[in-house]
């Protein structure tokens, strides 16, 4: 940042040209990868979703800084006592960007489209959050119908505790039915919604531009004229571009660069509240990790704090549970396995591995929010375990293969993580550690009947407090069984110009830029 002042000078000159009367200017948001498709229901990747989040809106939304539910396109809703009927009252007078009306009919059409999906690959999140398509046994939604012009009624087969949280997820943004029909196959690159910004253009692997929706239904919003999503793959290059003023906001800041940004008066840091977990998993079916003592021994041997200090640069908190503290059900009473080599050695000895053993450790090849550098953390773990005479060989492969093979149970010891989709404990514990999820996301192949019972019960329990207790109980068991060594809840770091105002990175990863402004 030695050139900051000069830059701003240039910057102003550049902006003046673009600014009209009371315009809010352009914000350039640089990130590591490009969107895949801009029809959110068809994708699962964050890079696509953050763009569609500006264009399409959901019936209900998360609160700006938490995972609590607030009105979205639906200004109000009612839930039946048995928890199977939801009636939403919609905002009136809202129009899609193509000029067609947003109404109950449009909502029904969107859900009809999704519910009639053919295979899971078509609408992946619909299946994972709502059980399945029409006619499938696991399906949650029975029917969606328009009660009147502005009222929609959802009927469920059975109560689903996180139903509203699911609905708030970005993939369930409402599209203009007319546009879906008009564009057909090409809708994935021509999204039309009701959001604060309209889709303008997409240069693949380079930029996606969205522009202000002048007719946005919320008065005075959005503040910006234009948001450009720019792909800059390399983390340091992205930061460089920010420092030079080529872009305004970046994600994926290297933890090691945090200090540098903080020192620069032209820049500010945004911390995304953690909703993730990075962990070291054991394949509990494989020797020697079928032995609980071994798992516990290793839990004692890993210096989490050192790892966090060095590879998260302090931008994370040590994890003792598989779910982050912000989530309902977090058990703070649990005492973490302290870093204690003697205990570890003792446990190992008890397990019959006094002289240690040789083991492969699979390390993630790609940076993820919950693990900015899997390879390096693996190296640190390697060094830690060496002290237990466990000779660790780091294995790495390309990401897709990695996931596939870990899922198939090929990895004895592996590093992975998870980012919550909807801020619900179910989305962590059932997805990652229930025996139903073996072969899916339960990579540890951890199968505990007790835990299973608790988790299933929690799924249909609509009372939040009761649910919370159930989860806490499950967490106790999991802690003792130690199928993972939870490492850290990282706090993803973003950096932006100090002139950015009103921006708060939402824990789910997507947030609207409607009330963001730049001076």
């Amino acid at each position: 940042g030695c050139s900051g002042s000069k830059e701003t000078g240039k910057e102003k000159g550049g902006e003046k040209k673009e600014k009209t009367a009371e315009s809010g200017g352009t914000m350039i948001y640089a990130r590591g990868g490009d969107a895949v498709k801009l029809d959110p229901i068809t994708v699962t990747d964050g890079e696509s979703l953050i763009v569609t989040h500006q264009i399409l809106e959901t019936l209900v939304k998360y609160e700006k800084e938490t995972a609590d539910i607030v009105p979205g396109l639906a200004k109000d809703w009612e839930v039946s006592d048995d928890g199977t009927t939801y009636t939403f009252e919609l905002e009136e007078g809202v129009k899609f960007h193509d000029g067609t009306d947003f109404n109950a009919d449009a909502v029904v059409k969107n859900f009809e489209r999704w519910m009639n999906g053919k295979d899971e690959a078509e609408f992946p999140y619909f299946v994972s959050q709502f059980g399945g398509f029409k006619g499938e046994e696991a399906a949650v939604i029975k029917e969606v119908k328009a009660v009147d012009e502005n009222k929609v009624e959802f009927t469920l087969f059975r109560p689903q505790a996180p139903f509203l949280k699911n609905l708030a997820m970005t993939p369930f943004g409402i599209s203009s039915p007319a546009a879906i029909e008009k564009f057909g196959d090409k809708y994935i690159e021509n999204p039309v919604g009701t959001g604060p910004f309209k889709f303008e253009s997409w240069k693949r692997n380079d930029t996606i531009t969205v522009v202000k929706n002048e007719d946005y239904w919320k008065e005075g919003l959005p503040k910006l004229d234009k948001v450009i999503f720019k792909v800059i793959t390399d983390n340091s290059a992205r930061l460089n571009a920010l420092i030079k003023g080529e872009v305004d906001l970046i994600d994926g800041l290297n933890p090691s660069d945090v200090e540098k940004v903080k020192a620069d008066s032209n820049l500010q840091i945004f911390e995304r509240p953690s909703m993730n977990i990075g962990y070291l998993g054991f394949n509990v079916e494989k020797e020697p990790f079928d032995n609980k003592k071994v798992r516990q021994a290793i839990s004692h041997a890993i210096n989490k704090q050192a790892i966090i200090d060095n590879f998260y640069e302090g931008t994370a908190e040590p994890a003792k549970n598989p779910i982050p503290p912000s989530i309902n059900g977090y058990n703070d009473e649990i005492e973490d396995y302290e870093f204690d080599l003697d205990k570890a050695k003792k446990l190992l000895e008890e397990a019959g591995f006094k002289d240690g053993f040789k083991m492969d450790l699979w390390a993630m090849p790609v940076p993820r929010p919950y693990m900015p550098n899997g390879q390096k953390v693996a190296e640190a773990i390697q060094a830690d375990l060496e002290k237990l005479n466990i000779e660790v060989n780091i294995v790495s492969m390309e990401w897709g293969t990695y996931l596939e093979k870990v899922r198939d149970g090929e990895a004895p010891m592996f590093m992975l993580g998870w980012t919550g989709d909807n801020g619900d404990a179910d989305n962590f514990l059932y997805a990652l550690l229930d025996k139903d999820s073996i072969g899916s996301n339960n990579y540890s192949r951890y199968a505990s009947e007790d835990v299973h019972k608790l988790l299933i019960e929690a799924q249909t329990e609509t009372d939040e407090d009761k649910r919370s207790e159930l989860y806490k109980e499950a967490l106790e068991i999991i802690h003792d069984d130690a199928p993972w060594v939870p490492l850290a809840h990282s706090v993803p770091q973003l950096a932006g110009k100090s002139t950015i105002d009103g921006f708060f990175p939402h824990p789910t990863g997507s947030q609207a830029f409607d009330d963001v402004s730049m001076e």
Partner: protein
Amino acid sequence: MLTYTIRRLTLLIPVLLGMVLIVFSLIHAIPGNPAQIILGQQATEEAVEALNKQLGLDQPLYIQFFDYVKNLLTGDLGMSIRTQSPISQEVWPYLAATMELALAAMLIAIIIGVNAGIISAWFQNSWFDYIAMLLALIGVSMPIFWLGLMEQYVFSIQLDLFPTTGRDNIRDPVEPITYLYLIDTLMQGRFDQFVEVIKHLVLPSLTLATIPMAIIARITRSSMLEVMRSDYIRTARAKGMSMFWVVYKHSLKNAFIPVLTVIGLQTGLLLGGAILTETIFGWPGIGSYIYDAIQFRDYPVIQSGILVVATIFVLINLTVDLLYAAIDPRIKYR
């Protein structure tokens, strides 16, 4: 000449076919499931299987291969698994970006390389010669990804002379027509943008130019030296010609033949080998297109991307061969 061209073109057919076969088998030998990657970590197994089926990846390999070749013959490069759009439409912007970069690099490499080579040969064993050749040697020994990082650090971050990344000013993006931004900006009369585009081009093209520049300088020098020792140069001098003309008229044209070969080879290599430079400078070119596709197991894109690059490479070398005729009348085209 025409028959020679036809003959060279027919000889290309088996090469191209072989390329298709090799690429196809290579790509399909890559482990990893594209569906998994597309759907991401959170996807369920059923979802992955379903997508596989949808993409036709559950078909036997030979059927996939024949379908692929059949489509290629109709100019259909397949559909990107990731973006669901036809590669033949998608590939051009990337290709154009790389071409612009590669051509700029080649231009720099030729202009500097050839002249340095000539001067070195002319003043053989002078200090210029020594320094230029030492630099050239260092140039060919340089890991360009390192050089790129260093250049970026010095010229862009420390000295703030050039932008760090991309092809154009993000705030004032070029409206693409041909996707060759230098041309597009000129067509639109946007000289400010033209200057911007050039500024963006400087560092990556310099980085990319290093190796070919060094190689060209070395080749030019040695082939100049060889030519300058030859009898016809002595003849030219015996006519009373000045050294300058001897060098620029008589020697250069002869010496240019091996240089041309190198230029052809290197241009081709630049097209594909730009991956490293493109990642460092965030250049949305064909190299990063293919590299990304590998990350995403986007088979059709990897296949067709590599094929496109290899085909261009082959065509460039064909062009070079044909260009020889323009320079050297001895090459017989029967």
